[in-house]
């Protein structure tokens, strides 16, 4: 009994149609003879404006349109993990099998595989009272990942029957006696992607998301349940940084959204994640990862949907009680999709052609990050951390997407083209970046080393001081500076090379555990504390540079574990003593 109508006009991805009835905003539409997918984005009088998710070439006015009666939803259930899907959740592996290596249009496959049989293990019994969010059973979704099947948010009642066994996502695994009668229980549920999934309570953030990347964990951490943005011009390291976090962070679930970026980058993830192991659990990284690939040459409107799709999948895993990290690369391409749609609707543009509601939309997305008590009993806690790349035109951070994003995030990793040019990676500028989660992180790090906060502050201050001194050095030359200042420059160089620079492609240094990060920073600051009195009492900076340990300190990061760091500390003391003796320095 669905509404039907006809196409009146086609303007790129925007299709105008008239229905013989009253369609609703957001309804999913089948467009034309090819049954392309689209969504109603505006209703005006008799005309519905449909944004098409697929290329509209060849469509003709007069062809039919059919209203499916529901908005774009995500299908939620076993079979999401380890897959690669497009912005509207069609499996790209499946599409490849069906239609070959080029994406063909109008191939409407259902998101979750209907044939696959999953071993369902019931966790409730007949007679149990349940509410939305309660876990009724589990499924081993991948070798190492447990999927928790939940009562849909809007249902509650008494379990009338439930059984363990092998089922497909549509099979009935039990029955629920509700106020409105008996409803079947299945492993699959759906949820409209543009709506956040409900929770019981929002909680304060308590833990940093540990990423194994020193400049992030030590200097600009993000909290689990927080939001971070990483803006930068092309080639400054957004994708590599987000992928490093996807690989090495201590989240339980990773949702990687390739939103209007390169096909090869997605292929790279598909090729490499299955080989990589999580350093903590030893399980394969692909087993906790979902990839959404709506690349740059795929239709713009599906790109717009892809972020909502990713966040919805993330919230679903959060509701199971997991810590989820979502990476969106790049939110600028999403914003451009918004601009494109808005332009075709002839809306009045605000800044740089973007619609006036850009800021609200950005806020809505980042608002979906958080640490929560999930629906259901037992105070299950889960989190969604949102990390977004921003690609500002010309690398200029004063543009609308960057400036609006800044208002809604807690951590800002400012990428710096100059650093990227000299291959200082991650090219995160330590003077322009910030984090609002420092209290959360400090608490966490202090359990490790009570002096950590001071050491970090000291390091940051040295880096700041160095940049001021460099200003002067640019005018009078480094040689003309007093040795105390040259020591600060040396220290900054050692912090940069020995700590901040971290090559993602180095077999050891690609991941640095927290313990090693803390030890490394400490030994560098120890060095400063050892040699600073020597400089003050007349030892020339050249002599300090000649200390063999300087080079050792710079290379400590390349070696696994913290033993070499302890050795270097021993060596540092010996060599400092030698210098002190040589120059007859007494007060230290």
């Amino acid at each position, binding site marked *: 009994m669905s509404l039907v109508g006809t196409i*009146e*006009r*086609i*303007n*790129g991805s925007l299709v*105008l149609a008239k229905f013989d009835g009253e369609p609703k905003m957001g309804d999913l539409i089948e467009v034309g003879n090819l049954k392309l997918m689209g969504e109603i984005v505006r209703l005006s009088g008799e005309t519905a404006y449909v944004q098409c998710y697929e*290329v*509209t*070439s*060849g469509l*003709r*006015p007069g062809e039919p349109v059919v209203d499916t009666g529901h908005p774009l939803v995500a299908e939620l259930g076993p079979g999401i993990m380890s897959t690669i899907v497009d912005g509207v959740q069609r499996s*790209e*592996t499946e*599409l*490849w099998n069906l239609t070959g*290596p*080029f*994406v063909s249009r109008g191939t409407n496959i259902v998101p979750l595989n209907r044939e696959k049989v999953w071993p369902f293990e019931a966790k409730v019994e007949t007679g149990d009272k349940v509410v939305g969010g309660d876990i009724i059973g589990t499924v081993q979704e991948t070798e190492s990942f447990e999927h928790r099947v939940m009562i849909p948010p809007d249902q509650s009642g008494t379990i009338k029957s439930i059984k363990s066994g092998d089922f497909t996502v549509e099979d009935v695994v039990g029955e629920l006696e509700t106020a409105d009668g008996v409803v079947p229980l299945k492993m699959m549920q759906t949820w409209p992607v543009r709506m956040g999934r409900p929770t019981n309570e929002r909680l304060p953030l308590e833990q940093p998301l540990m990423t194994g990347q020193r400049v992030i964990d030590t200097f600009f951490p993000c909290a689990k349940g927080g939001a971070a943005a990483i803006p930068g*011009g*092309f*080639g400054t390291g957004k994708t590599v940084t987000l992928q490093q976090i996807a690989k090495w962070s201590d989240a339980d679930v990773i949702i990687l959204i390739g939103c*209007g970026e390169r*096909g*090869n980058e*997605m*292929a*790279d993830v598909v090729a490499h994640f299955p080989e990589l192991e999580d350093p903590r659990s030893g399980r394969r990284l692909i087993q906790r990862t979902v990839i959404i*690939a709506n*690349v*740059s*040459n*795929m239709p*713009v409107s599906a790109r717009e949907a892809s972020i909502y799709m990713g966040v919805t999948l993330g919230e679903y895993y959060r509701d199971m009680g997991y810590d989820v990290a979502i990476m969106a690369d790049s939110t600028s391409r999403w914003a*451009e999709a918004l*601009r*494109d749609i808005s*332009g075709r609707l002839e809306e009045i543009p605000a800044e*740089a*052609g973007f619609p006036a509601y850009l800021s609200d939309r950005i806020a809505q997305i980042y608002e979906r990050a958080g640490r929560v008590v999930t629906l259901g009993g037992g105070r299950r806690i889960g989190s969604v951390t949102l990390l977004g790349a921003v*690609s500002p*035109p*010309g*690398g*200029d951070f004063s543009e609308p997407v960057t400036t609006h994003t800044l208002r809604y995030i807690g951590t800002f990793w400012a990428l710096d083209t100059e650093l990227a*040019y*000299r*291959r200082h990676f991650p090219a995160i500028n330590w003077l322009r970046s910030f984090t609002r989660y420092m209290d959360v992180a400090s608490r966490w790090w202090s359990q490790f080393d009570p002096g950590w906060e001071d050491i970090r502050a000291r390091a940051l201050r040295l880096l700041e001081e160095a940049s001021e001194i460099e200003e002067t050095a*640019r*005018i*009078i*030359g480094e*040689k*003309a500076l007093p040795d105390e200042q040259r020591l600060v420059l040396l220290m900054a160089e050692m912090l940069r*090379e020995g700590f901040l620079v971290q090559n993602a*492609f180095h077999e050891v240094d690609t991941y640095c555990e927290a313990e090693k990060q803390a030890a490394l920073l400490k030994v560098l600051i120890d060095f400063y504390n050892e040699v600073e009195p020597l400089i003050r009492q007349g030892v020339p900076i050249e002599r300090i540079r000649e200390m063999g340990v*300087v*080079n050792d300190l710079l*290379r400590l990061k*390349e070696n696994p574990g913290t033993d070499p760091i302890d050795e270097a500390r021993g060596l540092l003391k010996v060599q400092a003593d030698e210098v002190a003796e040589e120059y007859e320095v007494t007060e230290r």
Partner: protein
Amino acid sequence: MTVEQAGLIYKTTSEIRGPILMVEGIRGVSYDELVRIRRPTGEEVTGSVLDVSRDWAMVQCFGDTSGMDLNITIRFTGETLKIPMSPELIGRVFSGSFEPLDGMPRPLSTDLRDVNGGTINPAARDVPSEFIQTGISAIDGMNSLVRGQKLPIFSESGLSHNMMAAQIARQATIPGSEEDFAIVFGAMGIKHEEAAYFREEFEKTGALSKSVMILNLADDPPIERIVTPRIAQTIAEYLAFDLGMHVLVILTDMTNYAEALRAISIAREEIPTRKGYPGYLYSDLATIYERAGRITGRSGSVTLMPILSMPAGDITHPVPDLTGYITEGQLLLQRELSLRGIYPPMNPLPSLSRLMKDGIGAETTREDHSDVSNQLYMAYAEGTRARGLVRIVGVVGLSERERTWLEFADRFENEFVKQGPYENRSIEQTLEIAWDLLSILPEEDLIRIRETYINKYHPAHKSES
């Protein structure tokens, strides 16, 4: 009536606005379909449908509209723009809208392909990873190209980007393999002499017999440039993914392409973003660039080298900027280097090859390649910084260390970057030069190179062992 001439014919053009025509009273026209526009004199040009309703269509005309009046005949062909595919295309020369320019007949085939192509399913992509030796040190050593990559040259008018592209086309090989590249050359608005230069260069090495040229030159209709790169990519895809060839596509000059797109956008009165370019420039460029790559299970590859000029040398101009956001790196040519007599005038610092990591290393080039490259970047960056300092404090104001960096930068430009247009260096030679230069620096400063490699490849240690 032949099939070719079938279609709906109208003489109801109501408006001509720049390259845009409005046609009234039509029926059954589809979006994006190919249109033939005929002047009363019989001349015919093509166009395509940009916007269509039940009774009017907006058409973009790929030919020249000047001198046209409302008496033109519009034929809607019912098909999108398709071109015939066959192995006979190899060796041919066509105009920017696929008319033969070599005096030979139009190619015939029943295998017609839409010039817009399809989208390669990301799951079906095979990650490009075969190192291409171009024989140019600044590329091979520090910005290695791999088969299936899209790597543009950002240049300025008057710089030697053509010479460099021709050198790459001539010298590119996979070490240890005899296979050559087939070349698809797409020109958008370049000068006759530039097109002739490429032709001669290809002829010299015999590459011409393995090339297809699609030429829209400076005096050809500007709007035709919208289809030229798409025709080139369609042919490249066919040669690569149907015939299994390795194809190098050179598209020049993409800035002229973008200007054509802007002209259409302005005529449609769309809201411009930066410098008058439409907001969809990024997505539009992606539909051309992303057609490069490799496909799992298919033996060929499309390697893409677009050339574009940066107006006023500005890398933040929308065309280079958005290109850089799509391509897998960029090679940047600079006037400053050219003025100092350095060919290729390529500045490695702002240049990048993102796929380099997959193509180099012990198995393909050499184990120390990646570290050496990183070290060269760092050292050259320090050297250029020292050079900046010299302008203020003079050489005497530099520390010992800064002076060494400076010396490094000078020699690096003159010995590593600079080479002859016919000089073809092997990757080993490139790495040897790199080590010779790095040995100017104190060994402690080679911080980006693993100690094991220093011990193995540093000239000071090599002679020891």
